[in-house]
């Protein structure tokens, strides 16, 4: 009997071996198809590679390698000429003339011309394209009317003065316009490429791009592989031959891949691993200030919040930002005492009047304001904080709840919602009271942060309205003198901070793990890192 069992068991073990052993023997490391290969983590799947259909960080990371606008950024985040070798701005700040490089080429060898940009900018504002960032062109002559379908896209104030000379006419001066032209939505697309393939042109085997790299392979959900664009005007200075942007949803999974040597650069750093990494791999952990503010917004449609600036101020004063950044987020973030983050060009962020008060004095002042606002032990404030599902948001909300309890003596209600439910509630402005959000700058200008508080701005999610603030923003918009414009913007921020429509909590930082073999990485506030600026040290090279 035992012998029969053994027969059965051996049959079973043989079957397992037949199935499993070949798999184990098939193990092989990454295959190198020649040339230097940079493996970058990109985060979740990019939604598209069409410059007019994207708006996520991960899509833009890949697109900055594939395409090139009239202007670009250096490795340290300074605006530099790109497809255009130079430009001139008229004295009134409304007319921009660009000279496109003679050597600028698409990946199929076609020259990059002024017509390419005319076509692309018209496509960007054309309602049929349904582009996310048509507003990028909003100051360009006729753009608003085109977006509203009142005029044809051909009437856009963008003209080819010659094959290599482009002119853009604005309705009013926009000092940050050059910075906007470095954004992905302002990248050119190849008209014949779209004519041939329609909306699916941005796929491997079809896409024609004008950047340092061209699209070789896009394995959905896994990776996007790029190879050099041999026709790129600066190809001789590009050092890495191939770039793979690896899709990874989970930050912790991305860390495993980095530790296993599959990635040279990570898209993010998981919060739970930060402290250990700072200890174990301090040289590989790259943390840098970033143009992004994490904040709590008040829904000013709610009567108790709208009519009570003292209450809003008290709530803001009672929060210890230092504790939040040191103990709760603890990944190098900076406490936010201003709305506009530091690092903005030609601008000094304005600070709350109480930012430098000692903690005890600040808390005492907060208690006083809280009572003057009509609240106290006999009438504690009842307020809800809404945030989307994520550990960091939850921990921050708990900490703030505890700070308010300690300083002001009331307990806020915490409400955790799925991201899009939260967004929907914030926009409807009916049930929200206090909500968490982040605001990241698109371009390195204070306008990118302050404009969302203007009356009528679609992103004004607090419902803040202050005619004085609007006037100052308007004055800044009409000002060509950079110093005067700066003064208006700084004054506008002070005005807004005094009204407390939001509680800025901390300034974001960019966080990456960068392998020691990657050379040329430079931290910058926009967190833009083009692969063409990087190189890889051979493992045999001395450090």
């Amino acid at each position, binding site marked *: 009997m035992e012998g029969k*069992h053994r*027969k*059965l068991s051996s049959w*079973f073990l043989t079957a397992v071996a037949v*199935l499993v052993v070949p*798999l184990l023997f*098939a*193990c*092989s490391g*990454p*295959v190198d198809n020649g040339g230097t290969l940079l493996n970058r983590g990109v985060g979740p799947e990019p*939604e*598209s*590679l*069409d410059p007019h*259909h994207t*708006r996520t960080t991960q899509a833009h990371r890949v697109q900055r390698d594939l395409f090139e606008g009239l202007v670009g950024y250096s490795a340290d985040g300074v605006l530099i000429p790109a497809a255009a070798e130079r430009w001139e701005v008229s004295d009134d700040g409304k007319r921009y003339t660009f000279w496109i490089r003679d050597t600028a080429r698409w990946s199929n060898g076609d020259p990059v011309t002024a017509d390419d940009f005319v076509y692309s900018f018209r496509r960007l504002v054309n309602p*049929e394209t*349904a582009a*996310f960032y*048509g*507003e990028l062109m*909003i100051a360009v002559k006729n753009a*608003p009317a085109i*977006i*509203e*379908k009142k005029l044809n896209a051909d009437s856009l104030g963008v003209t080819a003065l010659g094959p290599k000379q482009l002119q853009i006419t604005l309705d009013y001066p926009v000092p940050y316009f050059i910075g906007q032209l470095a954004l992905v939505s302002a990248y050119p697309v190849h008209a014949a490429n779209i004519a041939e393939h329609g*909306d*699916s*042109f*941005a*796929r491997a085997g079809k896409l024609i791009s004008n950047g340092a790299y061209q699209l070789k392979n896009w394995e*959905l*959900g*896994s*990776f996007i592989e790029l190879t050099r664009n041999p026709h790129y005007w600066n190809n001789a200075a590009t050092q890495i031959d191939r770039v793979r942007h*690896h*899709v*990874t*949803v*989970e930050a*912790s*999974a991305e860390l*495993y*891949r980095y530790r*296993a*040597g*599959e990635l040279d650069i990570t898209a993010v750093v998981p919060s739970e691993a930060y402290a250990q990494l700072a200890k174990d791999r301090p040289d590989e952990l790259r943390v840098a200030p970033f143009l992004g503010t994490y904040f709590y917004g008040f829904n000013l449609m709610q009567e108790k919040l709208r009519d009570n600036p003292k209450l809003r101020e008290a709530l803001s004063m009672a929060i210890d930002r230092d504790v939040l950044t040191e103990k709760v987020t603890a990944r190098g973030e900076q406490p936010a005492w201003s709305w506009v983050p530091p690092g903005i060009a030609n601008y000094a962020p304005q600070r709350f009047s109480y930012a430098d008060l000692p903690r005890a004095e600040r808390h005492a002042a907060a208690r006083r304001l809280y009572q003057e606002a009509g609240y106290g032990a006999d009438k504690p404030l009842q307020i809800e904080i809404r945030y989307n599902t994520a550990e960091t948001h939850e921990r921050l909300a708990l900490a703030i709840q505890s700070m308010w309890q300690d300083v002001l003596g009331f307990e806020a209600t915490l409400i955790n919602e*799925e*991201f*899009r*439910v939260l*967004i*929907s*509630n914030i*926009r409807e402005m009916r049930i929200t009271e206090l909500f968490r959000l*982040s*605001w990241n700058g698109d371009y390195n200008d204070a306008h990118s942060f302050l404009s969302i508080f203007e009356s009528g701005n*679609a*992103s004004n999610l607090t419902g803040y309205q202050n005619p004085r603030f609007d006037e100052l923003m308007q004055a800044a918009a009409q000002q060509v003198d950079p110093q005067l414009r700066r003064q208006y913007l700084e004054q506008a921020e002070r005005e807004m901070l005094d009204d407390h429509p939001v509680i800025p909590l901390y300034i974001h930082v960019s966080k990456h793990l960068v392998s020691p073999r990657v050379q040329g990485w430079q931290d910058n506030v926009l967190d833009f890192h083009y692969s063409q600026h990087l190189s890889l040290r051979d493992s045999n090279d001395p450090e």
Partner: protein
Amino acid sequence: MGNSMHSMGAIRFALFRLLAAIPTLLLVIAIAFLMVHAAPGGPFDEERRLPLEIEANIAAAYHLDESLPEQFWRYLSGLAEGDLGPSYRYREYRVAELIGAAIPVSLALGAIAMLLALLVGVGGGIAAALAHGSRRDRIISALAMSGISLPVFVIAPALVLLFAVYLGVLPASWSGADGGVSRYVLPVFALALPQVAYITRLTRASMIEVMNSDFIRTARAQGLRTASVVRHHALKPAMLPLLSYMGPAIAGILTGSVVVEQIFGIPGLGQLFVRAALNRDYTLVLGSVIFYATLVILLNLLVDMLYGFLDPRIRQR
């Protein structure tokens, strides 16, 4: 004659079940359509709000400015022509392309994992049952119990840490293997382990019950060897509970495990479905529901037919 009549009956049964599935499927689509549209937040909502004119242009481009009945009719009309519509998130892709690209990955992984689970689970279950009460039985049962208790989100990172990070013998991710077969190993194990544990327990319990039944005792009394008893008499009836489990289990494993796919960066159906829901990618959600519902209907039909094959009593009914 009897056989051909029997197969005719089976075909009629299958056809009837497939026809009956159409209204079920339509109902599922209608409910899913209403539910995704009722969920707060739209497919193009992000933290940064777009200017209203641009929002309106995007809504018009995707017919989201039409009434719900109009949108539903448009969707059904497309469906009748075999078109699952465009993805709202991945704007250059059709839903059928996205699901089509993910199916082979999930199918290959799921099929290998299920085969492995069946092989090890059924074998382990039989081995434990035949040695009921012995040390071997206790060891196998304990292993199966721990397999059930250990969630995939613990097993999968542990496998990555051991084999990819510390030993460096297997890739940590799908794209890390550059197309090599080795990318299947860890995900297959992570997918198969909980199934192995469950199938082992199920087989063991069922086998013990069958081995204690009268007809097995009779077969043994006739002097048949254990292996012969198991193969010819016990195996078929013992597999019936397992078969009931296999329908939904196969559907589940073939449509991908979100956790395993996220940890290994696998471009499978599980991730696609979850992202579709989170992104409010209406058409992708509906496409996923249709795919999953069809799979469950077909697998249940297959299981029912196999049941008839394994259990003559059901066939006669």
